[in-house]
C-alpha cells in the first residue's frame, strides 16, 4: 500500500486550492510547511526596509550559496597534502566552471563574514537585543546565539582558508595556530591538538577539512535555525515592541489570551504570544504572503545576482604551493583577522588571546549590562543616542590612531630597554592601552548620562571604528617585515633576504 495516493501527491505539488478570504488564506499558510516559516500576518513596521536592512536574510542566503557551491567543491577537492594544491589548480584550469565555483565560494565566504558583522551592528544600533517591557521576550538570549554564530562563521572561514594548501593558506594557519599556543600553560597542547602533530601536515589538513565541511556547517545550521525560530517565538523583529506599546495605549483592557503549547513538557512557561496585546489588523499589518515572501524572494535574487556578479569580476588568488621552508614577506592572515594580527604584533598574549576573549564575552554580555527598555527598534534609540554614537566614533578614531602612533613611534621595548620580563610587555603595550581607554570611556559615559544604553552605544561605536582602522592598517599599511608604509609609499622591490 503506498503512503500517498497519486492524486494527493499531485495536489501537494500544484496546490490548486484558492482561498475565499484572507482568513482562509492565513490558515492555509500556517498549515503549509514552507509557508509557515512566516507568520500569518506581518507588522508594517517590521516590513520596513530601515527596520532590518534585511541583513540577516542576506546572510542566510549567502550561507545557502556557500553550502551548494561547497558540496559541489567537495566532489572536486582532494584533502591530501600531495594533491590538495593541484586539485585547486584543476578547478581553475581543467574543470568546466571550476573557476566560477571557487570564486563564488570564496567571495561568498568573505561576504558572509562582512554580513554577520553588519547584521550585528544593525541589531545593536537598533537596540534589538532588548526583551521589551510589554511581554518579556527572549531576545537577549537570541543575541547570545547571534554572537555564537559570528564566532562559528569566523571559524568556518578560517578552517576553509587552509584547504587550498598554498603559501597564503599555510602561513595564515601557522600564524593562527601559534596564536592559540600563546595561551598560558595549555597553549602548546591546544596547538598540537589543532594540528594533530607538532607541525602543519597531513593530520592538520584532514582535521581542518572535516571541521570545514562537516562539523562546523552542521553546527552553524542548527544554531542558525534556532536563531531564526526564536525570532518567530519572540513575535517578530524588535520593532514590533512599538506595536505592542501602541496597542497598550489604545486598549488597556485585559490582554487577549490564546492557546500555548509546551512541547512534551520540555518547554516551560508561556510563549510571548499569549500575553501580547497587539492585534494585527488591516491598519498595522499585511498578510505575510505575498508581502513578506515576495520581498524575501527579491532580496534572495538580488543577493544571488550580486554574489555571482562579484564572482565574475573578483579573481580567487592562488599562490605557490605550500612551502614550510619559505615564509612570504609579509605573511598575512585573512582580512578579518588583520586587526587582530596588528595587535598580535604588540603582544601575542594580549592581542591574540585576552583582547578577543574580552571582546567576545563583552559582546555576549551587552543585553545583560544594558537593560533599559526605551525606544526598542529605533536606530541609536533617540537623538542623544546618535550624539553619543558620534562621540564614540570620534573617541575611537582618536584613541586607536593614538595607540597606533605609540606602537609605531615609541615601541615599548625601546622605551624600557632594561626590562627583560615578557610578562611586563604582555601587560604594557598599545593593545592594553586601547582596552583600558575603551573601558574608561564606558564608565565615564555611564556616570555622566546614568544610561547603560548611551554608554553601550558610545563603546560599541568606538569598537566599530577601532576594528575598521586596525583592519585597514593590517591590510594596507603593513609591508615587508611588518614595517609601516603609507599608501603612497612604494614597498621595497627586494625585501632584505638571506
Amino acid at each position, binding site marked *: 500500500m503506498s503512503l500517498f495516493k497519486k492524486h494527493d501527491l499531485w495536489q501537494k505539488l500544484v496546490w490548486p486550492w484558492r482561498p475565499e478570504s484572507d482568513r482562509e488564506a492565513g490558515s492555509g499558510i500556517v498549515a503549509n510547511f514552507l509557508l509557515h516559516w512566516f507568520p500569518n500576518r506581518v507588522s508594517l513596521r517590521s516590513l520596513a526596509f530601515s527596520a532590518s536592512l534585511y541583513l540577516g536574510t542576506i546572510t542566510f542566503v549567502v550561507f545557502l550559496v556557500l553550502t551548494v557551491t561547497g558540496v559541489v567543491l567537495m566532489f572536486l577537492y582532494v584533502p591530501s597534502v600531495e594533491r590538495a594544491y593541484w586539485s585547486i589548480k584543476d578547478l581553475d584550469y581543467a574543470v568546466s566552471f571550476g573557476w566560477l565555483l571557487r570564486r563564488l565560494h570564496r567571495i561568498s565566504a568573505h561576504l558572509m563574514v562582512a554580513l554577520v558583522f553588519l547584521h550585528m551592528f544593525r541589531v545593536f544600533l537598533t537596540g534589538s537585543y532588548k526583551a521589551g517591557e510589554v511581554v518579556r521576550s527572549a531576545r537577549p538570549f537570541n543575541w547570545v546565539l547571534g554572537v555564537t554564530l559570528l564566532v562559528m562563521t569566523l571559524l568556518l572561514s578560517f578552517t576553509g582558508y587552509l584547504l587550498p594548501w598554498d603559501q597564503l593558506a599555510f602561513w595564515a594557519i601557522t600564524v593562527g595556530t601559534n596564536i592559540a599556543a600563546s595561551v598560558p600553560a595549555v597553549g602548546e597542547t591546544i596547538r598540537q591538538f589543532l594540528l594533530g602533530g607538532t*607541525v602543519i601536515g597531513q593530520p592538520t589538513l584532514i582535521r581542518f577539512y572535516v571541521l570545514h565541511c562537516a562539523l562546523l556547517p552542521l553546527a552553524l545550521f542548527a544554531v542558525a535555525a534556532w536563531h531564526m525560530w526564536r525570532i518567530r517565538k519572540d513575535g517578530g523583529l524588535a520593532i514590533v515592541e512599538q506595536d505592542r506599546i501602541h496597542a497598550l495605549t489604545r486598549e488597556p483592557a485585559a490582554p487577549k489570551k490564546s492557546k500555548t503549547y509546551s512541547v512534551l513538557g520540555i518547554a516551560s512557561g508561556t510563549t510571548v504570544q499569549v500575553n501580547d496585546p497587539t492585534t494585527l489588523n488591516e491598519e498595522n499589518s499585511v498578510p505575510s504572503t505575498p508581502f513578506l515572501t515576495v520581498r524575501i524572494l527579491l532580496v534572495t535574487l538580488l543577493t544571488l545576482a550580486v554574489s555571482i556578479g562579484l564572482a565574475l569580476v573578483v579573481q580567487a588568488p592562488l599562490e605557490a604551493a605550500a612551502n614550510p621552508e619559505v615564509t612570504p614577506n609579509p605573511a598575512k592572515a585573512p582580512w578579518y583577522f588583520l586587526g587582530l594580527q596588528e595587535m598580535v604584533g604588540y603582544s601575542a598574549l594580549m592581542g591574540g588571546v585576552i583582547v578577543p576573549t574580552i571582546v567576545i564575552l563583552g559582546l555576549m554580555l551587552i543585553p545583560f549590562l544594558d537593560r533599559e527598555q526605551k525606544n526598542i527598534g529605533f536606530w541609536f534609540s533617540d537623538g542623544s543616542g546618535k550624539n553619543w554614537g558620534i562621540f564614540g566614533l570620534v573617541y575611537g578614531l582618536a584613541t586607536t590612531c593614538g595607540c597606533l602612533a605609540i606602537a609605531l613611534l615609541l615601541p615599548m621595548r625601546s622605551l624600557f630597554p632594561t626590562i627583560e620580563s615578557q610578562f611586563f610587555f604582555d601587560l604594557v603595550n598599545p593593545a592594553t592601552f586601547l582596552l583600558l581607554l575603551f573601558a574608561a570611556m564606558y564608565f565615564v559615559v555611564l556616570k555622566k548620562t546614568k544610561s547603560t544604553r548611551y554608554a553601550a552605544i558610545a563603546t560599541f561605536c568606538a569598537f566599530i571604528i577601532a576594528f575598521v582602522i586596525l583592519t585597514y592598517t593590517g591590510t594596507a599599511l603593513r609591508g615587508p617585515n611588518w614595517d609601516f608604509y603609507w599608501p603612497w609609499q612604494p614597498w621595497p622591490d627586494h625585501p632584505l633576504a638571506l
Partner: protein
Amino acid sequence: MASSEAVGAAAGVSPDRNKDTRRGFLGRLTAAVAAIGALIAGWPLFRSLVPNVLYEPPKRFRIGAPENYQEGVTFLEEHRIYLIRESSNFHAISGICTHLGCTVKFSPFPMPQEETVRQFTYRALGEFHCPCHGSRFRGEGTNYAGPAPRPLKCFHLEVSAATGELVVDVAAEVSRDVRLVV
C-alpha cells in the same frame, strides 16, 4: 509582564516540587547516569584524535661534515636552522620566530661589528628579522625589538662517532653560549 510572573512562579515552584520526592530523586539520578555515560562515551571519541604516533621528520638528524660549512652563517632550508661557523666553533640557531612561528631571515651587516649583549661582547655578523610581525633578534639569538617573547632557540650539536658528520638534535635545547669545537 504577566508572562514573566508566570515564568518566575513556575521556576520558583519546580525545585520544591522535585526536591525530596522519589520522582525528583530518580530524575536527578537518571540525569547523572546519562551525564557520566555521555562522558565515558565521549572519551574514546576525543582520545582517538590525540595522535600516539607522529609521522613527522625526525627531531635528530645529520647535516653533513663540519668542513663542508663555510665560515659564517648557513641556512638549512629543509630544517629551518641557521648553522653558524666561527673557525672551529659551531652552533645551531633555530630559524623559527618565537612569536608566531614564521621563518626569520638573516640580515648580514656590511661589516662584522662588535656588539654587547647580556654583558658579553662578541663579533656579530648580522641579525635576524621576522617578516610576519617585525620581531628582531641579535646575531646570537636575543630578541630586542618587536613582539617576540623569547630568544631564538639554540639546538644541541654533536659530531657523529660513526660518520664524522654534524648531528643536530632539535628536541634538545641548549644555552645560547654553547659552542661545539671541532
